[in-house]
């Protein structure tokens, strides 16, 4: 098994995924690599359809049936230092890995809870599936977690899902996600279906939880202000590739890729909600026949002659801040002019 740094919990190497469809193969993930450190929160940002969900689903091997991982590995490091490739786990190992090591809150899952079972039953089910069948202990732990997410613990625990509002269900799901103390929690647009006040509450709760329980987070969002608040590291996804990645401040104040720069330029300076990711000119690329060279070139205002021929690679610029672009200097210049 590949070597991993001690403080890294998840390491994705050169991962590529296609969806087989009748119109051709959708290249939804292309040579994606990144590391997630222990206790770190990483945000994946990018337009809808850029491949964020595909990346996250592959991490717990929950991709749709027509998906195929064509290359790469997903290495997971246990607390005792043991390293496993998630893509090679047996069915039993995979079942155990899910939720116990890596929990996931799916995008748009309004009905994450089984309507005919009480919340308590669903917490117990989760615990028992991973060999923890002491109902009293499960109850006690669950009540603590429900309190941590600022719900009335007893009442919610004994309720049926339909007795909870949307925001309450989402918080209950957050509590459930950390029931088995996983090292990683993946949150795919966890606040999209909620109103703004509830979104705020969820983000506060998440920050709280992470502080107390110290797990790693992969946070997917197309709302940059939420991502900025949650993340230590931000990765920009475009056309199934990570085109820029770096510490949150570098990304927001010194972005090097024209696409990230464009996204941020469109963010209003005040902390206001706005769907900014649609405000970049042009349409998202076709992933069945993607553009040649740099896939962003048809929409890029800094485009050079070589851009539609040569594929730019993620190169190290400022320590841990990487961007895949031939013309970063122009971006830096443009920012200077802006100020």
């Amino acid at each position, binding site marked *: 098994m590949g070597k991993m740094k001690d403080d890294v919990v998840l390491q994705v190497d050169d991962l590529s995924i296609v969806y087989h469809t009748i119109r051709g193969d959708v290249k939804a993930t292309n040579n994606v690599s990144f590391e997630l450190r222990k206790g770190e929160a990483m945000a994946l940002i990018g337009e809808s359809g850029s491949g964020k969900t595909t990346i996250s689903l592959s991490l*717990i091997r*929950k991709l749709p049936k027509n998906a195929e991982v064509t290359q790469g590995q997903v290495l997971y490091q246990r607390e005792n230092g043991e390293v496993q490739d998630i893509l090679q786990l047996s069915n039993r190992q995979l*079942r*155990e*890995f*899910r*939720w*116990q090591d890596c*929990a*996931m809150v*799916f995008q*748009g*899952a*309004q*009905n*994450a*809870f*089984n*309507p*005919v*079972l*009480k919340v308590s039953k669903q917490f117990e*089910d*989760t615990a028992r*599936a*991973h060999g923890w069948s002491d109902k009293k202990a499960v109850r006690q732990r669950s009540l603590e977690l429900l309190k941590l997410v600022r719900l*009335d613990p007893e*009442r*919610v625990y004994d*309720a*049926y899902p*339909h*007795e*909870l*509002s949307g925001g*309450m269900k989402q918080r209950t*799901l957050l509590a*459930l996600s950390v029931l088995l103390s996983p090292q990683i929690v993946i949150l795919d647009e966890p606040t999209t279906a909620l109103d703004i006040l509830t979104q705020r509450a969820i983000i506060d709760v998440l920050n709280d939880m992470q502080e107390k329980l110290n797990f790693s987070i992969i946070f997917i969002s197309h709302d940059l202000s939420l991502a900025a608040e949650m993340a230590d590291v931000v990765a920009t996804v475009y056309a199934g590739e990570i085109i820029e990645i770096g510490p949150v401040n570098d990304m927001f104040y010194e972005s090097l890729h024209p696409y990230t720069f464009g996204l941020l330029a469109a963010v209003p300076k005040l902390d206001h909600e706005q769907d900014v990711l649609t405000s970049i000119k042009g349409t998202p690329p076709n992933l069945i026949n993607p553009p040649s060279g740099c896939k962003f070139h048809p929409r890029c205002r800094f485009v050079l002659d070589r851009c539609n021929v040569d594929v730019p690679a993620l190169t190290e610029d400022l320590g841990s801040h990487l961007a895949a672009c031939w013309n970063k200097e122009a971006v830096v210049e443009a920012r200077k002019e802006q100020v």
Partner: protein
Amino acid sequence: MVSQTSPMLEDAKPESATERIIERAMKIYQNYILRVLLQAVLTVWAVTSFTFILIRLMPGNPIDVLVEQILVQEGISYEEAYARVASSFQFDPDASTLDQYLDWLGDLIRFDLGESITSPGTKVIDEIARFLPWTVFAVGAGLLISFILGIVLGMAMAYYRNSPLDHLLSLFASFITGIPNYIWGLLIVIILGIQFGLFNVGQLRGTYASDVEIGFNYPFISSALAHAALPIITYVISTLGGWMLNMKSSTMSVLNEDYVNVAEARGLRDSRIISAYVGRNAMLPLFTQLTISIGFVLGSGVVIEEIFVYWGLGHYLFASITTRDYTSMQGVFLILTMTVVMANVLADLGYGLLDPRVRVSGEK
């Protein structure tokens, strides 16, 4: 019916669990039970009144039927035969239908179903008590077996959709559903009984062999099962296909639900997901259909019992129709209606147990 659904927990003021249970029970009592009872009584009254009239619209009356029979057999004069029959029956063919109806209703309110017209001295209620259990046994067993089989096969079809197994079972389900149940009854008698000689239809007359003693003993139970087997098989075959196809489509839609996906991500075992997450939710719509099916199978059971000479309520009804035994027919229709209504209430309550969302509001 409680009009509002259960309150959001956020809005409810704190109160103890027992208080909530009592309050809930009161609501259900005041609204649900009363409503259901009232509906049941009204339904039974309407259906039986309707059949009361229908019965009397049939050509001939009890006296005519027997007179004709005597005329053919004994060759006496019409007047003689009529006088003989009329004197032995407690039935006045000249009384108005309204009078008869009011008489019958008056007795019914005192739970009196009267005596058989054609065999004076025999209480209708006793005859029903003799025949009803066999019908309930055969229909109940048939429906139960068919429901369970249908659920298991339907889920298998959904889990292995588009596999050869699914295609084969779909074909099978459509085929057995397309043929009416009395045809199945006849086919079984003709093909299995007569062509292949797998059983002797004559020996399976009645509900158990005459030489066994009723009670909890092997000869009686095995004999009762053997006699009921063919009607039960017919009920199973004629209803199974519907359950299978319904369960398949219901399961397929549940498999797309978020909570199934999340359950898999939670690492639950497949067995738990199949039973408590997929199965239980997919079964809910079938429960509503169960109530319709009970009435349907009971009704068609009359013909099936006649085909297999199974002495249940249907057989008794058939005999009563032949002799135009009005009181017996009315009794049977009343009991059949009550059984269907009761089955509906039970299925309704069962649905409430399975689906917490309908428990308080009493509606979906």
